[in-house]
């Protein structure tokens, strides 16, 4: 990335005034609650109950939970799209309702709510202007991001002609136009094909590599598991679990061994060793690849060798990838 495109918008608005601000803590919620009310002020839903969270710099934080658990509400509260009923949300040490914090935030909403009558280029230019970016920086950044999300060929088409996956991609591009320090992704992989999902996950990991902080919410558990460092699990507005993914997923009391080129005769021997040590063999078998992995291999192979793919070869490919 060039020096010009990465330059931050100089602004006195970013001056920190919070004396308790810890630069390592990007997001902090304290007793954050949200109650949705009707027109007459009567309580409709208690969407979030006293949420205490801390998201640190450079981590990928996942918000997990079934529909209606309060994930999107939390994100909207952090963005200032909703006002908390009680408690507070701080982003970069500032109140979430403050506009200036948005200088350093990128947000990809659940369904890429973009203006369908704009082309990709115009979309990027429009959002660049909202960051008060000069024209040359806007142009360069927008060009770079459109290429990055693989939409260069469709840059002059209006978004109403885009497929859902393409809209998602341009949505991500607009979220990154300001080279944000904090990226909030609401269901980032929804609507994407497996290839797109993988690319999205790669991009999230790339953001982490650039020391950016990512908060994503999803109910696609595999995606969260693949990319998140820490997760919070919400259920009906309550925080049920919070911690590092590795810690939470570790199964204590079980051991797994992975080996290559082991003949079937060795299986019996291994079982005997385990029994000798008082252990219980649960299973000894060839591991399976994931369907995602299989699909991606086929697509990659097809890109390299266009034409009809033989069924036998496909079967072989599957076996290969399983080895």
């Amino acid at each position, binding site marked *: 990335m060039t020096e010009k495109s990465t330059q931050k918008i100089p602004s006195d608005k970013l001056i920190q005034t919070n004396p308790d601000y810890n630069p390592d803590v990007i997001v902090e919620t304290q007793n954050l609650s949200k109650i949705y009310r009707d027109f007459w002020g009567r309580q409709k839903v208690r969407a979030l109950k006293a949420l205490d969270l801390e998201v640190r710099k450079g981590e990928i934080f996942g918000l997990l939970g079934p529909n209606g658990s309060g994930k999107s509400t939390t994100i909207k509260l952090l963005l200032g799209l909703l006002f908390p009923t009680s408690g507070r949300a701080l982003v970069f040490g500032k109140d979430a309702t403050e506009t200036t914090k948005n200088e350093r935030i990128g947000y990809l909403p659940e369904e890429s709510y973009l203006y369908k009558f704009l082309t990709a280029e115009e979309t990027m230019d429009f959002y660049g202007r*909202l960051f008060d970016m000069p024209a040359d920086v806007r142009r360069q950044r927008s060009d770079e991001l459109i290429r990055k999300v693989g939409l260069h060929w469709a840059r002059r088409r209006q978004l109403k002609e885009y497929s859902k996956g393409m809209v998602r991609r341009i949505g991500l591009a607009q979220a990154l136009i300001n080279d944000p320090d904090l990226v909030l992704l609401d269901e980032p992989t929804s609507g994407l094909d497996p290839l797109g999902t993988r690319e999205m996950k790669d991009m999230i990991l790339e953001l982490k590599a650039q020391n950016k902080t990512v908060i994503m919410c999803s109910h696609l558990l595999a995606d969260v598991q693949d990319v998140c460092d820490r997760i919070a699990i919400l259920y009906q507005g309550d925080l049920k679990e919070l911690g590092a993914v590795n810690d939470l997923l570790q199964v204590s009391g079980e051991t797994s061994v992975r080996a290559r080129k082991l003949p079937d005769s060795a299986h019996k021997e291994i079982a005997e060793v385990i029994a000798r040590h008082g252990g219980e063999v649960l299973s000894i078998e060839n591991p399976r690849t994931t369907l995602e992995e299989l699909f991606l291999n086929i697509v990659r192979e097809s890109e390299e060798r266009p034409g009809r793919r033989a069924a036998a070869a496909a079967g072989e490919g599957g076996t290969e990838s399983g080895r």
Partner: protein
Amino acid sequence: MVVKDFPDLMRWLFGDSTRTGAFLILLLLILASSLFGLFFGFLVASFRHGPAEAFYTVAKVVAGAIPDWIHISYRRIFAIAGLAIKEAIRRRVILVAFLIFALSLLFGGWFIGGGEHPDRVYINFVMWGTQLLILMLVMLISAFSLPDDIRNKTIYTVSTKPVRISEIVLGRIVGFAILGTGLLAVMGIISLLFVWRGLSHTHQIAVNDGGQVEFQPVDRLATGHRASDNAISGTTTLFDSGHRHYVEVVEDVRGIDDPPPADTESILSQETRGDKIVYQRLQVMHASGHSHNVAVTGKGEAAVYDFSDAKGFFRARKPKYAEMLVFFDRQGEPKREGMSTGDEWTYLGFIDGGITLSRAEYLFNNFSADDFSSTDVLPLELKLGVYRSHKGDINTRIRAGLQIESFTGENETALPRRFRSEVMEFETEEDIIQVKGIPRKIPGQIYGPEGELIESGIYDLFDDFAPNGRLKLTVRCMDQSQYLGMARASVYFRLTDRPYWLNFARGYIGIWMQMMIVICLGVSLSTFLSSPVTMLGTVCAIIFGFFSESIKKLTVPEVSGGGPVESFYRLVTQKNQEEALSRSLSVDAMEQIDKLFISMVGAVTRIVPDFSRLDFSDFLTYGYFVDNDRLAVAFLISFAFCTGLTLMGYFCLKTRELAG
């Protein structure tokens, strides 16, 4: 044309002894609306969070408003404005509006034209058409834009950028304003061309069965039209564009050394009689509000008569109105208003005819020769009403008299010599604008401070009569038992005409100001209401704004028949408006409900902008110039409304959750 207000910017703004200035009223309004806003905000917040938290919330919103307006970014505002413009263009809103406009001109052209004043019909048509279309268009786009953004959640991607609420509101207003201005400018230019093209025409002279032009003596013209004093014969043109003109042959007698008449092309013949030259020339009489020049080439039967394009349609008359009009009754007592000849028309005040002291005095200020292009003869235009108290020939004109005098204002040193002119008699009738040339040198008398006659002679209108810039013009009705009606705008000196295009542009600036208020109202209401409700509110405001005067009349306490409930009751029980209702609890209740309703309607008419003050279509229709003060007052009214509405929209959007 009815002109009821004669705005003087400074007096309007800062007031005088008789009225409060608009500036002070604005300050009071700002104070009152701020207090109301704070109280209302506090009330709503208390309801939601309790009084202690409410105080903090309101303070936070107010404190946050300052940086929101100080740190606005023009790049962001124009980005949002550009988006609003692109949206309207790509959703083909503009195309549809323009198509409707083009179609209305296309088919409208079939039905208008002809009649007594085709220019008025044309101008009225394009002004009202443009006004209606533009206001409807901006109302629609401003009412739907923000609610659509919130409903489609596209606002999420905007408000999560460093965009201030002030920029969201202003951006939309600026966008729609640019769009509307562009469209209005295009419509204005097309309208002007349409009017010009529609009114442009020429004529051919009428010929007899033998194909010859036949001039008939004046007394044989069965026209009903008055011929000029020096007309000797005449004929007509052929019927074209819904009218025909009478063409007179007039005799112009001039000295041998005098220059010939200015329009030499219209001269038929010239003949020397003694020491005079008599020119016989053609003169095309006015019809349908215009005339033509005529050029004659050739002589006798071989003569060709060539009529020019219509002239006199496109005028922007700049009147010099009197500062004050004072009526005097039969006994010579000054009155604020003239006699009333009935309720149906209260605009004009009437004076008695015959030998009474009844008269109307027009007091002119700042009367200076600099305002006139030619000061040899000053054009005085009069449009007087006539009320006939006995039967007679309706075509008989009423005799009236004009007299000019010097005068001094209150608290001014009296002039040592007062000039009074002879009475200048003239005839008048209803519904015509008469142009009377007042020569600069006029016969009159000089009176001393005690009213004693000093001398008689011919004196200068500016140097002798109005050395202090003040002039009194007295109008009297000379015919017994007849009445002359007039208002302040009925009599004026016509100053140098202003360019027509400038006046046309000013007329469209009036529409532009209305458009701006509708945009701000639409955007402001749409920050907290849904699109249909916003539209309804805006339509109501426009209707109240345009007809506020008529609606205000319904809210005066003395209106007979009561309010809506009482009127309905009278309708059902078949009681007429004047019949007293027998007192009962239900009648009392009915009256109280009506009172409440009427006071609410009255309050609304005071809150909504008075669109009639921004509507200059009558000025264009009747060919009067929209003066600077009137334009400035209209602009300030619009600006104040737009600012207030923008702030209201800002606070409403600021205090609502965008992801509700």
